[in-house]
């Protein structure tokens, strides 16, 4: 038995790199750590979900307002398009979460989660590496990398048809970016068109024309530099 958590996660005698673990358990979202905001379209809600782990919910539920393009996001900045507090390297970091879409792909232009320099429900911007679904594209879980210059050249389907189940997701940021779902590697990026700036954990949603208050749930986030 190792006495410390430190020694479980770091080689002996080395300085630990930045790490955050969030379990989304309790009476309310930890707003000392997280900003929960909307982009100005409708009134989003952020509530701890009083369910056991079954696909009905659990964790934190984020719901966009029931209007056209209703949006909501979770990150560390105070304004929708302001910069996050960004502790994680574009060339040496890992993002892990347990996440579920609660509504069909058709209900949202974008449901996204991963690393980004800003809270953006629309999966756009600079410096991001995210899993996403998009009502305007395929019915698959997709990956997107936004480069430091805003290129979305690394945009791809995974092999998985989007569903409403909980999955574990992992993004490894290095000289290439690797995206895994439930422990299975789904996408490896080329070495070009990658983020160049620091990033932060974020997730978000942008609704569609259906005005049906799309939502997602998240019950674990862990990020660390490698």
């Amino acid at each position, binding site marked *: 038995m*190792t006495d410390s*958590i430190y*020694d*479980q*996660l*770091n*080689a*002996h005698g080395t300085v630990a790199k930045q*790490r955050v*673990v969030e*379990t989304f*358990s*309790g*009476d*309310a979202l*930890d707003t*000392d750590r997280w900003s929960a905001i909307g982009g100005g379209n409708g009134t989003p809600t952020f509530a*701890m*979900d*009083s*369910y*056991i*782990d079954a696909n009905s919910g*659990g*964790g934190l539920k984020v719901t966009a307002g029931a209007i056209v393009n209703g949006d909501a996001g979770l990150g560390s900045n105070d304004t929708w398009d302001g910069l996050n507090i960004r502790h994680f390297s574009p060339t040496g970091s*890992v993002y*892990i979460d*347990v996440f579920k879409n609660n509504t069909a792909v058709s209900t949202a232009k974008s449901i996204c989660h991963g690393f980004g320099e800003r809270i953006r429900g629309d999966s756009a911007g600079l410096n991001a590496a995210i899993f996403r679904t998009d009502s305007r594209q395929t019915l698959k879980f997709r990956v997107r990398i936004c480069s430091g210059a805003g290129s979305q050249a690394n945009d791809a389907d995974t092999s998985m048809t989007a569903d409403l189940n*909980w*999955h*574990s997701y*992992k993004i490894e940021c290095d000289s290439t970016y690797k995206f*895994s779902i*439930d*422990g*299975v590697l789904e996408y490896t990026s080329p070495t070009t068109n990658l983020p160049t700036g620091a990033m932060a954990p974020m997730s978000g949603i942008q609704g569609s024309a259906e005005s049906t208050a799309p939502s997602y749930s998240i*019950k*674990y986030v*862990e990020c*660390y530099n490698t």
Partner: protein
Amino acid sequence: MAFPSVYEMTNPLTTVRKQHFWEYFSGSATSASTFEAQSRWNTSNITHTGTYAMVDEADEGFSILSSTSGARSAIGFNNIRQFSPTASVAIFDLRRMTDASHDSYAGFKFDDTNSTFYDTAVVSQASYATNIGLYTGASTGTPSNQTDSNVARDTAWHNYKIENGSANIKLSIDGVVKIIKTSERPIKKMQPFVLNSTNTSASKETRIKYFEAYNT
């Protein structure tokens, strides 16, 4: 280094992690309001108003103090219930600062706003029983009761583990299984819960310094 991530300490990435949290009760909270603002917990003054604060001593965690006869002071998740009655575990370190006329309970409970023990699985150190026990109950209107262990009540720190399974509930004290109970088991989803109560006008205090819960 044994693990690359906290996730992989308890689950491989091929397994979707279930609800799981741990609480160290370390921090600067000196009142119920600061504790609530800084933590995942909600305070619940079931009867009279309790006092809630971090303890300014080594290895003493967080204090729940009840100072009026009949006072019942608790912490929970404000009835956010994410833990299964038949597949969950709670592990916690707890002590009482006094023994006589002093009851404390901790574990899982459906409702953190009362002290009626339906849909409950808690460790009990209560003045009506000689020993530490496992108090459980099913839904409203059904019996609830305590099963005693062979460990006498005291004021020392103990490590407790409650395992809610599909066939029984197990209580371990300091790493030893003491009770396996198959009756009066909870049915509804539950939340973490710690209750301190006094049966006299003297102040009574329960301290807790670790609480971990997860679904299995």
